[in-house]
């Protein structure tokens, strides 16, 4: 039996989760929400996390009805992510580990998402689409590693959505992506946008600047004038949100399908914050049905960054014998998914 407490704080969520042998005992989280038009900056996000983290640790222990000595391992997100907020989680994790005399483990954030998705959905060996504010990757397991088959060659899909939401001043509460999704539901007017797929890789930066021009015509008129857009368009915000989603999600589904064909796999698991978008899930489900495959997805409790996923991935590592010297309990902004040796899988 492994009982693990996990701390996640790599971006604008700070979350604590407790898990015992795959059974969820607590999963609490707070989100740093910035005003419309503003993104979250590292320093301010770290301040938010510092103010919330200890209360969350208490809440989680209370919810789980556990005392510190019931825990076998304390896990924290080692990276990737923004260093200042990551450090908040690491400092508390280190301190608790020494105070309570419980081993400490650093966990790769992306691995946390994948393992949590597998646990919740029961997917065995899926192609994983990992989509969030900082990552866009198509991943498959092979020979003790989660290998990256496709990814964005510039910005992440969630970053593209968040930045567009900021341009049209959508609320960041509960998240910019959620508000784009809601607004998109009120349109079915498809505006042609660039569609950029290169093998199993995608690119979003060109789409973002193109749609920025459509959303704010005139703002960049000296830069580039597109002949067909010379007249002021009458696209509504909803039309733009709808078309942006339709385009970028079609790209994601396409590269996922290409990875399925390449790897000969029939299961897809979507993880990461963008993964709770119901339109993306719907499109992926249709693709899977067309090729006799199966989609696995989770809701916002597990898709969006949370402490539980760190606890669970850490528990799997701990169970399979992984230990970490205390001096290695640092954080790192860059930490690729395929750097981690997946010691807990035997297939």
């Amino acid at each position, binding site marked *: 039996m492994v009982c693990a407490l996990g701390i996640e704080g790599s971006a604008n969520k700070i979350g604590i989760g407790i898990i015992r042998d795959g059974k969820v005992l607590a999963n609490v989280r707070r989100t740093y929400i910035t005003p419309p038009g503003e993104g979250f900056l590292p320093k301010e996000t770290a301040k938010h996390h510092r103010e919330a983290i200890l209360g969350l640790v208490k809440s989680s222990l209370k919810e789980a009805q556990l005392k510190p000595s019931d825990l076998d391992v304390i896990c924290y997100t080692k990276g990737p992510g923004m260093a200042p907020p990551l450090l908040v989680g690491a400092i508390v994790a280190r301190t608790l580990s020494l105070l309570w005399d419980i081993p400490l483990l650093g966990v790769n954030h992306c691995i946390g998402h994948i393992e949590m998705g597998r646990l919740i959905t029961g997917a065995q060996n899926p192609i994983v689409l990992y989509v*969030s504010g900082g*990552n866009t990757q198509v991943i498959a397991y092979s*020979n003790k590693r989660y290998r*990256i088959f496709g990814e964005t060659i510039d910005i992440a899909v969630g970053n593209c959505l968040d930045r567009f939401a900021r341009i049209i001043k959508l609320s960041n509460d509960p998240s910019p992506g959620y508000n784009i999704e809601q607004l998109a539901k009120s349109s079915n007017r*498809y505006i042609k946008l660039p569609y950029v797929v290169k093998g199993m890789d995608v690119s979003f930066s060109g789409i973002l600047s193109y749609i920025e021009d459509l959303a704010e015509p005139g703002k960049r008129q000296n830069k580039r004038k597109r002949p067909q857009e010379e007249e002021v368009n009458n696209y509504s915000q909803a039309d733009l949100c709808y078309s942006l989603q339709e385009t970028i999600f079609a790209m994601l589904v396409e590269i996922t399908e290409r990875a399925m064909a390449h790897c000969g796999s029939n299961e897809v698991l979507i993880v*990461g914050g963008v993964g709770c978008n119901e339109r993306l899930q*719907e499109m992926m489900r249709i693709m899977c049905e067309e090729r006799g495959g199966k989609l696995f997805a989770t809701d916002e409790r597990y898709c969006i960054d949370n402490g539980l996923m760190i606890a669970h991935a850490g528990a799997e590592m701990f169970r399979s014998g992984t230990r970490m010297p205390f001096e290695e309990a640092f954080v790192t902004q*860059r930490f690729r998914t395929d750097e981690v040796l997946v010691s807990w899988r035997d297939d």
Partner: protein
Amino acid sequence: MSLEILKQGAEGRLYLGDFKGEACLIKERFVKKYRHPELDTQITRQRMKAEAKASGRCLAAGILAPKILHSDLNTHKLYMEYFNAAKTAKQFIQETVSTQTEDEAKKCLLEFCKRIGEIIGKMHSNHIIHGDLTTSNILINPKGGDYEVILIDFGLSHYNQATEDKGVDLYVLERALLSTHSEQPYLFEHILAAYRTACGKDEQAVLSKFEEVRARGRKRTMIG
């Protein structure tokens, strides 16, 4: 006429059929219901045209690719030459590794890398960008006691002289090799070495563009 489905690839379904009495492969890009109909039509037409064009360009340049016999935009079907004895480079690599001794396998794969590199170099020297270079999209076709290399799946291809596009093409291949054939990490460097001998006068510029695309991938911060 009921056709035998060979395979459902990423791009569409593959059937065995015939065109004017000649056995051929039919690739049907069926309507993908997950995409907006307008986007789907646009993508399907674009990919079919790209595939037919690139195949013609390759053959004209002396690079083996399936001959396109007929293209039907209304039924989204492309009729093309079928190589019934061919296997994918992916299968070829895996079989070579599992059936030969380590030294033999490596020798065989180094020769394979040389050929692949030269063909991709030749393709780029003709400014053909494949767009989806993976070991699933390269066929190894036995011929006599030897084999020939055939490039397939040109749906994402285009014609471009820009070094950026060639750099990205190489980057896509490198990543595909690293993820699919992680046990043979040496493949790409040998392919690249052969590529350099065949890619034409832009060699230096393409290589530095490739390094730049690679660096972008490494530098990207991954938050959340």
